[in-house]
């Protein structure tokens, strides 16, 4: 299992960078494809991910899965999508530069060279002659104005809170759930049609998840595909069933 310092939460890029460094790899597409599973495992198992950051972790998971699927099916990738991968590599390289700089800054802070300025000094101390009065009446300030400003502030804080209301997302199917579903299906039916399987999906996300689940099982050598001729229906079956037959 991967060991990541989880006592302080880290952003998705930080987690990626750590995984790549653990593999002693450079920041490349190959490295990203290789660590995709570990990243997913981290997101799944980590209890320390701040809820506000979860969305960003999931976006990154989607990008990695995409890169991984490209490693499996390279001919499916367009030039535009290729660019997105390069962009992620660049983003990660730059992030790394700042992480390195932040280590140097941490060293600087560690030296404890804090500088001090006198704060809140009595205004008549430090001055030769001429006293400044201790109370200066503020212009245009009345009890009513104080009241109005304070009421406005409270209202503003309430509006802010309403905005921060939590929204729960509709439950979505996960790749793991899909994998279990595929296994059950094949235990019952021995084989199924790939296109019909995808048609059962209720949303685009589900199509992607189903597709990734099938790819994952193929990669793990659990599944094999049968196709009679080019562009005809693809059938999915357990590798073991195929061998036993």
């Amino acid at each position, binding site marked *: 299992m991967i060991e990541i310092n989880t006592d302080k939460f880290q952003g998705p890029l930080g987690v990626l960078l750590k995984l790549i460094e653990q593999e002693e790899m450079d920041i490349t597409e190959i490295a990203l494809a290789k660590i995709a599973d570990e990243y997913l495992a981290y997101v799944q198992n980590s209890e320390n991910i701040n809820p506000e950051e979860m969305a960003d972790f999931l976006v990154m998971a989607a990008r990695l899965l995409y890169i991984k699927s490209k490693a499996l099916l390279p001919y499916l990738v367009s030039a535009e999508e290729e660019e997105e991968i390069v962009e992620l590599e660049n983003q990660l390289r730059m992030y790394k530069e700042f992480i390195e700089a932040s280590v140097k800054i941490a060293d600087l802070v560690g030296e404890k060279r804090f500088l001090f*300025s*006198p704060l809140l000094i009595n205004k008549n101390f*430090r001055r030769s002659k001429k006293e*400044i009065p201790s109370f*200066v009446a503020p212009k245009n300030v009345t*009890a009513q104005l104080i009241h109005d400003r304070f*009421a406005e502030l409270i209202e503003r*804080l309430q509006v802010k809170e309403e905005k921060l209301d939590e929204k729960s997302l509709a439950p979505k199917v996960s790749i793991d759930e899909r994998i279990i579903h595929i296994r059950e299906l094949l235990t019952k039916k021995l084989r199924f049609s790939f296109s019909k399987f995808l048609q059962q999906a209720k949303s685009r996300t589900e199509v992607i998840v189903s597709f990734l689940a099938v790819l994952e099982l193929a990669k793990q050598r659990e599944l094999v595909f049968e196709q009679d001729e080019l562009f005809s229906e693809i059938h999915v079956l357990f590798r073991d069933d195929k061998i036993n037959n």
Partner: protein
Amino acid sequence: MNLKSQLESLLFVSSKPLGVVEMSDLTNTNFEEVEAALTSLAEEYKAQNRGFILIKNNKEYQLTTAPENTNLVSRFLKDETSGELSQPSLETLTIIAYRGPITKLELERIRGVNCSLILRNLLIRGLIEDKNDKTKNENFYSVTLEFIKFLGISSVSELPDYEKLHRSESLSEVIAQPLSL
């Protein structure tokens, strides 16, 4: 270690005059050396035409602005205290009026920004005062009696809707939010 530089740091940052004994303790140096270094500093300031001078009063030393700049400095301090209150200062003042006594951190959580400079400005104008609570070792800010009188009331509780606004729950919630760094 450079004694003159050390003494200069202490005198610069101190908000009260400093005695030779205290400076001697802090710098771990004997009285004679401290006094010699202070004399030498005082001469340097004059020779170099610096913007401050070192003055001595009953064995206590303090830095003050150079006499030839007194008018400039007074103008600056007067501008600071007599100018119109900025919006952030006014907002801070209203929070202290309705919620005081209140700590700096509580104020900052409500306003979402650091308030050091604003508090300093309100203190200089004599609109607020701070009191140290020794058991909690924290400073609490309240509006001054002069300011209350200026508003034409005799206590903050006479501010409009005081009971209701003073207890506002949304403020208490903001104050209770955890801060992590």
